[in-house]
């Protein structure tokens, strides 16, 4: 058995036989031509270009049918290369000036472009060098009269290749592909993107060891979740993976049934299971996984990887898109939470001894109208397109909350005077992530429409453990009895004032903790998209009464280890 590790590019498990895609090396004779052959070579070039366009057009249509318009667009880009007003003259110039035959001319120009792209900093652009190579080889093959080789698959296989171009991927009968393995590539290479959209497991960037081991018809296991690939696995590994595969398939099937179902407990009590999002690309996965809204929209991405603050207009467009895509479903937008471990170089904050206890989140926003107001204006303006809610991070006192709310009122007034449309009754909530806020949750609850518990920071501040410090990582646990009590205190105080409580930290999707959270009365569970279905399933197995009883018992446990082992015993 040989184990090779690569980059997990598309999740899932496959067990099967290998099929090695040979890179059919094409020898290009570099010939020097005479002056009077130039016109003829240029003519040959153009007829090859025309033929290449025709075949790309066909491939584009086929791909659109198989994988959707979006995936077919890559061939649209390839078609554009064949019409490129810089590239085509470059081909011609090579023929004219360097007196090269058409095939060699195309190859040289393509190689120059590919080299330029491969030297680029951006990973995504580096991968794009393969686009022009793909297109170039298509033209060269036509010029040389080499048939484009379409690999016919007569049974289900795991494809192994140096790299797969979009043309390659489109030619395979994808029903017969169990997994893709490539020597090169990254999470953003075509193979990875295509594999994810087709739902086929893939491991990329496996390196030259893959190609050395590769032969047709070897038994192989592909674990697209961990990036592990086993060649000729031994019996026990094979058994283990057969079981995993069966479990995986069964679980997928079981969980699918929760996609369109409202999250309900066994006794029919409705709870909300929603998603966390870091950018607009997360919306579709949340919807596809049956998310009933967005419990935490982290807006930091709008501010990162750039040189200045985003404009109101830029933010408005993003919030509007989120609002429209989610329709009636709630989208809770958390106002900017920078500082701590998230630095924005262009804001030029001074370095701090204790950044997590320093100038961050709402503390920055309350001081900087130029940051806070454009964001609030953008959220409010977008609020007319859906069901948006505003949430403030890092509130530690009533004064901060009052001040933040006053600024919202200010902004509303401004918008009204300008005649702008917005939801004037927009819900305002706050994060509960600082112990001081929990202690005065009864006061705070009178001032907001909802709470959302941010467990990552709440643990950090309660147990005094830096959550970015790996040495003490084991201390950062939601099972600490103090944390469990704080969660209960928050929910009790909120319910007494008639407001609801969500949780948007990692703990909300923690399979073991869910019964406790249900038992102490959590109303909304917000997590990353991949955990939503599983959470719905767990909730469906518990009645509220059962969960309450267990919660009472759990609250009597004195250590995180005791809590953890107890939670494991009650798992259903």
């Amino acid at each position: 058995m040989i184990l090779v590790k690569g980059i997990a590019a598309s999740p899932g498990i496959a067990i099967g036989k290998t099929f090695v895609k040979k890179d059919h090396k094409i020898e290009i004779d570099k010939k020097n031509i005479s002056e009077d052959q130039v016109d003829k070579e240029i003519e040959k070039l153009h007829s090859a270009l025309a033929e290449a366009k025709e075949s790309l057009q066909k491939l584009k249509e086929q791909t659109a049918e198989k994988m959707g318009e979006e995936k077919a667009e890559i061939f649209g880009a390839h078609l554009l290369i064949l019409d490129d007003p810089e590239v085509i003259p470059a081909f011609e110039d090579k023929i004219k000036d360097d007196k090269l035959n058409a095939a060699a001319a195309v190859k040289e120009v393509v190689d120059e472009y590919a080299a330029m792209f491969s030297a680029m900093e951006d990973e995504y652009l580096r991968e794009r060098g393969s686009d022009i190579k793909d297109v170039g080889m298509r033209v060269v093959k036509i010029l040389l009269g080499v048939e484009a080789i379409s690999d016919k698959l007569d049974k289900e296989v795991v494809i192994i290749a140096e790299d797969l171009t979009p043309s390659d991927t489109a030619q395979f009968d994808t029903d017969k592909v169990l997994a893709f393995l490539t020597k090169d590539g990254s999470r953003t290479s075509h193979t990875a993107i295509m594999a994810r959209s087709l739902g086929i497991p893939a491991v990329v960037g496996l390196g030259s060891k893959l190609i050395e081991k590769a032969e047709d018809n070897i038994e192989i296991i592909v674990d697209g979740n961990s990036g592990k690939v086993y060649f000729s696995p031994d019996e026990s590994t094979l058994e283990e993976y057969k079981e995993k595969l069966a479990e995986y398939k069964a679980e997928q099937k079981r969980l699918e049934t929760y996609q369109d179902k409202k999250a309900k407990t066994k006794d029919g009590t409705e709870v909300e299971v929603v998603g966390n999002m870091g950018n607009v690309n997360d919306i579709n996965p949340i919807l596809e996984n049956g998310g009933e809204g967005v419990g935490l929209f982290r807006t930091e991405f709008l501010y990162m990887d750039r040189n200045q603050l985003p404009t109101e207009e830029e933010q408005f467009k993003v919030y509007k898109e989120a609002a429209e895509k989610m329709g009636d479903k709630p989208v809770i937008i958390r106002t900017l939470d920078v500082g701590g471990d998230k630095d924005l170089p262009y804001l030029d904050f001074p370095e701090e001894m204790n950044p997590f206890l320093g100038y961050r989140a709402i503390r920055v926003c309350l001081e900087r109208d130029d940051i806070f107001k454009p964001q609030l204006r953008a959220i409010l303006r977008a609020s007319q397109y859906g069901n948006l809610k505003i949430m403030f991070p890092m509130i530690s006192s009533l004064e901060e909350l009052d001040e933040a709310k006053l600024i919202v009122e200010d902004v509303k007034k401004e918008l009204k005077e300008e005649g702008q449309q917005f939801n004037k009754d927009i819900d305002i909530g706050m994060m509960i992530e600082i112990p001081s806020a929990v202690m005065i949750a009864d006061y705070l609850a009178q001032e907001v429409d909802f709470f959302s518990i941010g467990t990552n920071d709440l643990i950090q501040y309660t147990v005094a453990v830096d959550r970015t410090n790996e040495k003490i990582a084991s201390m950062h646990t939601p099972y600490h009895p103090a944390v469990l009590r704080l969660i209960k205190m928050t929910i009790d105080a909120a319910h007494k004032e008639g407001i609801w409580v969500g949780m948007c930290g990692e703990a909300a999707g923690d399979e073991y903790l869910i019964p406790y959270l249900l038992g102490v009365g959590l109303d909304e569970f917000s997590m990353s998209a991949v955990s939503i279905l599983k959470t719905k399933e767990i909730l469906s197995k518990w009645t509220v009464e059962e969960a309450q009883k267990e919660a009472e018992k759990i609250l009597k446990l004195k250590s995180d280890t005791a809590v953890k082992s107890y939670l494991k015993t009650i798992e259903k």
Partner: protein
Amino acid sequence: MIRLVEEKKVIITNKTGLHARPAAQFVQKAGKFDSKIEIIFEEKEVNAKSIMGVMSLGVGRGNEIVIRAEGDDASEAVKELVDFIEVEMAKEDEE
């Protein structure tokens, strides 16, 4: 009177920058105009109708580019291309 040269600065705001799909759409839009159109970014100038040229700039999010057009339809061209970046591209994020 028709202005023959027109230019405008614009900031790229979408996540992926001027890559792949947005670049392809941009180039196709540019191709509809008769004017000579260029993108200027960090002292490099490329033909806005060339997909390889546009992609080779490596324009990412937050970068500022200048779009310059020269010809009878220069002002429409600049207007439409700037509009494309500010409105349509801002919506279009990969995957």
